[in-house]
C-alpha cells in the first residue's frame, strides 16, 4: 500500500530545515540507509532551493507543495509550485569541470534520483517528479 505524506511550505529558506527533517523520516520508513537518505534529502533540498530562487525569484510566502509517496518498490516525490512556468530546456547543470560557485543543484538532483521529470508546457506553476528505487535488501 502506498503511504502518502504531503508537506506544504512557503518559499522561506528557514523552513527548508522542516522539509529536510520530514524527508529524512520518510526515507527511513521507505527503507533507505543513512547515506542514501542524506543524498535524497540533498536532492529535494536543491529542488526546493531552485523553486525559491528561480520560480519565485527569491520572493517569500509562496507555496511549495511536496508530495512523498512511499510505494513498495520506490519512493516518489512530487514538487509543485505556483511560480512562473520554467523553460524546461534551460534547466540543466553546468559542466562539472568548469569550476565556479553555483550551477550544481540540477546535477545533484539528477545524480541522486533514478528518474527526474520536469513537467513541460505548464499553464501556471511548475511540477517536478522524482523517483528513487528502494533497495531490495531493506529490513
Amino acid at each position: 500500500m502506498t503511504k502518502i505524506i504531503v508537506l506544504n511550505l512557503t518559499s522561506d529558506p528557514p523552513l527548508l530545515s522542516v522539509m529536510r527533517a520530514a524527508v529524512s523520516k520518510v526515507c527511513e520508513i521507505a527503507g533507505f540507509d543513512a547515506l542514501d537518505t542524506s543524498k535524497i534529502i540533498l536532492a529535494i533540498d536543491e529542488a526546493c532551493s531552485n523553486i525559491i530562487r528561480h520560480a519565485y525569484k527569491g520572493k517569500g510566502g509562496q507555496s511549495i507543495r511536496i508530495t512523498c509517496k512511499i510505494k513498495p518498490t520506490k519512493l516518489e516525490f512530487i514538487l509543485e509550485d505556483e511560480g512562473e512556468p520554467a523553460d524546461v530546456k534551460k534547466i540543466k547543470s553546468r559542466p562539472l569541470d568548469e569550476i565556479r560557485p553555483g550551477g550544481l543543484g540540477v546535477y545533484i538532483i539528477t545524480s541522486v534520483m533514478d528518474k527526474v521529470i520536469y513537467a513541460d508546457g505548464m499553464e501556471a506553476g511548475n511540477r517536478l517528479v522524482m523517483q528513487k528505487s528502494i533497495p531490495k535488501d531493506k529490513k
Partner: protein
Amino acid sequence: MSLKISNTVKGKTAVLRIAGEVDMFSSPQARNAIMELVKQRVPKVIVDLGEVSYMDSSGVATLIEGLQLCHKYNGNLVVAGLRDNVREVFELTRLDKIFQIFQDVETAKANG
C-alpha cells in the same frame, strides 16, 4: 537556523569553525566569515566542518568562491573534519578533486 561561526588566526593560518546546517538560508553567513579572512589575505584558511551536520550546493559554492579568491593571492583554503554526508556532497560534485580534504584540523595544519 543560524550557523555558529568562530575563528582563530595564528601566524599564517586561520581556522574557521562552522557549526550547524549550511543551506540556502545560512550559507551567506558562512560566506561573510570566509570573505573577512580573504580580505585579510590570510595565507592558509582551514575550514573546520566537524560540526556541520548538513551542507548543500550553496555551501559548496561558498567554499569554491573562497578557494578561488585565496588562489588569486597565492593562498589556500582547505576543509577538515567532514562527516560522511558532507563528504558525499564533495564526492557527488567531484569537488574532492579540487579541495584538499583533511581528517581533522590538526592534520590540515601539519600538511600543505
